[in-house]
């Protein structure tokens, strides 16, 4: 593949069919429902479906034929596509944040996979190679990560890096953890109440209310379960690999040093089991919306859907090597904060060591946010009128968009500014000491000047 890497290639020839497979059932249904009034009855509707299918197949095939990808002379990935208006996109691999391989159900059945490289700041540049054969997809992932790491070309002939499994979430734990959520239980109880009323009175309104309070959230529980089924975390030379999924599967690879921030959270009922959830901010991740196995909120990656606290901290050690998060001394919020945030007052605390900033908070759902100083984007102090009366202010330590937004909430007003200034200094020092973007490049090789962040 090395010498072939710069030759434009196409995705797998079955791609248009696998893509069409996803929309097929919808199309057929739409034609039969919407086109009920087409004269000629069943046969002509069948003909319409056939016509549409042929048109879609031709379009799909031509657009597949017109899409090629290759590695350019700078070692970056290029994709050319477009039926009439040609569009060529370049994926700057020095900015690669993670690589995801997804296998939507239809593609999985025919042994195909989609490769999604995620690039920082690539809001409009979502690139997906759909589909490649599974072997090809894995080779592509290895190639992308190797090039991003600074091992330019030549790496692909080496075997795909071996994986060492670290953690597997048992499906029963996942199921129990999803039900053990106060909102799910409240929704369920309220929904059943509506259902009982509906059955007793025979009014349709009760059923509608049941669908909205129990039915739809229940459905999202099921899709969540399918998406996170058999969640495993493995370690390989090119990063942490997160796999999950029952029907559609996905495997996301987060290279070392691409983690922007981490949060460990615990909902009310999980305290009883000692479970927590671990989420990450990864720049440029999670922008794919809507379809199939892509999971996690925008800009975020779920590192562990549910795990015992000790396991989570063990994993945290691998994500942030050399950081003893539980060992960092936390300072509680001043007493005045009780008036501003009575429910979470007991949890409010912040701390900092040489490498990370830590903030704790939350009432029903408690959370601990961790942000490496080197990843700090900016620091903000904010104060609302009620806070001013109490002599409080909040210091936000800004991370890339995602589920983790660390903040020292409701600190003493002067302390808030002191925290902000201290964070700015720590962040500056950490940035200066940080290793280059291309993590496999040896330190004595200078990082390329002007490498954008």
């Amino acid at each position, binding site marked *: 593949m090395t010498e072939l890497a710069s030759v434009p290639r196409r995705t797998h020839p079955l791609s248009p069919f696998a893509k069409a497979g996803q929309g097929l059932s919808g199309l057929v249904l739409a034609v039969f429902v919407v086109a009920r009034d087409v004269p000629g009855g069943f046969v002509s509707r069948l003909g319409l479906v056939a016509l549409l299918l042929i048109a879609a197949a031709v379009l799909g095939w031509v657009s597949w034929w017109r899409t090629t990808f290759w590695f350019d002379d700078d070692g970056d990935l290029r994709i050319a596509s477009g039926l009439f208006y040609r569009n060529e996109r370049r994926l700057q691999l020095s*900015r690669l*944040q993670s690589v995801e391989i997804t296998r939507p159900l239809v593609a999985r059945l025919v042994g195909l996979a989609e490769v999604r490289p995620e690039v*920082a*700041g690539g809001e409009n540049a979502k690139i997906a190679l759909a589909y490649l054969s599974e072997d090809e997809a894995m080779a592509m992932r290895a190639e992308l990560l190797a090039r991003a790491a600074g091992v330019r070309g030549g790496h692909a002939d080496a075997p795909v890096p071996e994986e060492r499994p670290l953690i597997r979430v048992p499906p029963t734990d996942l199921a129990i953890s999803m039900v053990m959520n106060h909102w799910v239980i409240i929704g369920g109880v309220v929904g059943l109440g509506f259902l009982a009323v509906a059955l007793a009175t025979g009014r349709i309104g009760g059923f509608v209310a049941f669908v909205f309070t129990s039915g739809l959230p229940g459905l999202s529980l099921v899709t969540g379960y399918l998406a996170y089924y058999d969640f495993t975390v493995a370690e390989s030379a090119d990063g942490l690999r997160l796999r999950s999924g029952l029907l559609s599967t996905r495997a996301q690879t987060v290279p070392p040093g*691409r983690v*922007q921030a981490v949060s460990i959270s615990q909902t009310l009922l999980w305290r009883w089991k000692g479970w927590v959830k671990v989420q990450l901010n990864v*720049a440029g991740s999670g922008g794919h919306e809507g379809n199939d196995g892509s999971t996690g909120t925008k800009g975020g990656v779920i590192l562990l859907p549910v795990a015992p606290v000790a396991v989570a901290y063990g994993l945290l050690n691998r994500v942030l090597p050399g950081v003893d998060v539980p060992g960092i001394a936390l300072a509680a919020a001043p007493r005045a904060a009780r008036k501003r945030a009575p429910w979470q007052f007991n949890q409010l605390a912040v701390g900092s060591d040489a490498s990370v900033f830590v903030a704790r908070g939350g009432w029903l759902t408690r959370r601990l946010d961790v942000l490496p100083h*080197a*990843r*700090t*984007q*900016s*620091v*903000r*102090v*904010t*104060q*609302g*009128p009620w806070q*001013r009366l109490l002599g409080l*202010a909040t210091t*936000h330590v*800004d*991370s*890339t*968009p995602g589920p983790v*937004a660390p903040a020292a909430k409701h600190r003493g*007003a*002067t302390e*808030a*500014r*002191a925290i*902000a*200034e201290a964070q*700015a200094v720590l*962040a*500056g020092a950490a*940035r*200066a000491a*940080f290793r*280059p*973007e291309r993590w496999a490049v040896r330190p004595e090789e200078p*990082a390329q000047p*002007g*490498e*954008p*962040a």
Partner: protein
Amino acid sequence: MAPDLTADPFAPPPGGWVRVSPRLAFVRRAIGLAIVLPLGLLATVLFAINDLSVWAGINLFVMLLVAVWIIWIVGRQVRAIGYCERADDLVVTRGVMFRELVIVPYGRMQLVDVRGGPLARRYGMSTLQLHTAAATTDAAIPGLPVAEAGRLRDRLAALGEARTAGL
């Protein structure tokens, strides 16, 4: 380096705040009044021709109250905006009711925009907008004299390039 933190978390850094052009207050007042006054007058006229003179009076009074409030609050808001270029970062402050102070390291600036609406440009002002990889950074300095905005943009871009760090 250490600012005086005796009481105010928004105390100026040692160099003091650079304030923005007072003409910004004029432009913002003009925009505010251009929205409030015609609407208020229209409502007043509608009340009056429908023989609801009491309501017309109340409406007129409220309209004047709002107008005075706009003139007053905009002045305070504009006077609250300030920035300071320090050795390693840019500090921006703003807000009267909800106060904010942002510290943006030069090495984290990804993009520095200068923009300005037609009215602002007419009065020789631009807005400088800083972007980092965090969507929450939200550091904009409105009401900069055009020349100062250009100078600041060039300086920030140069500093940013010299100190840029990987995400």
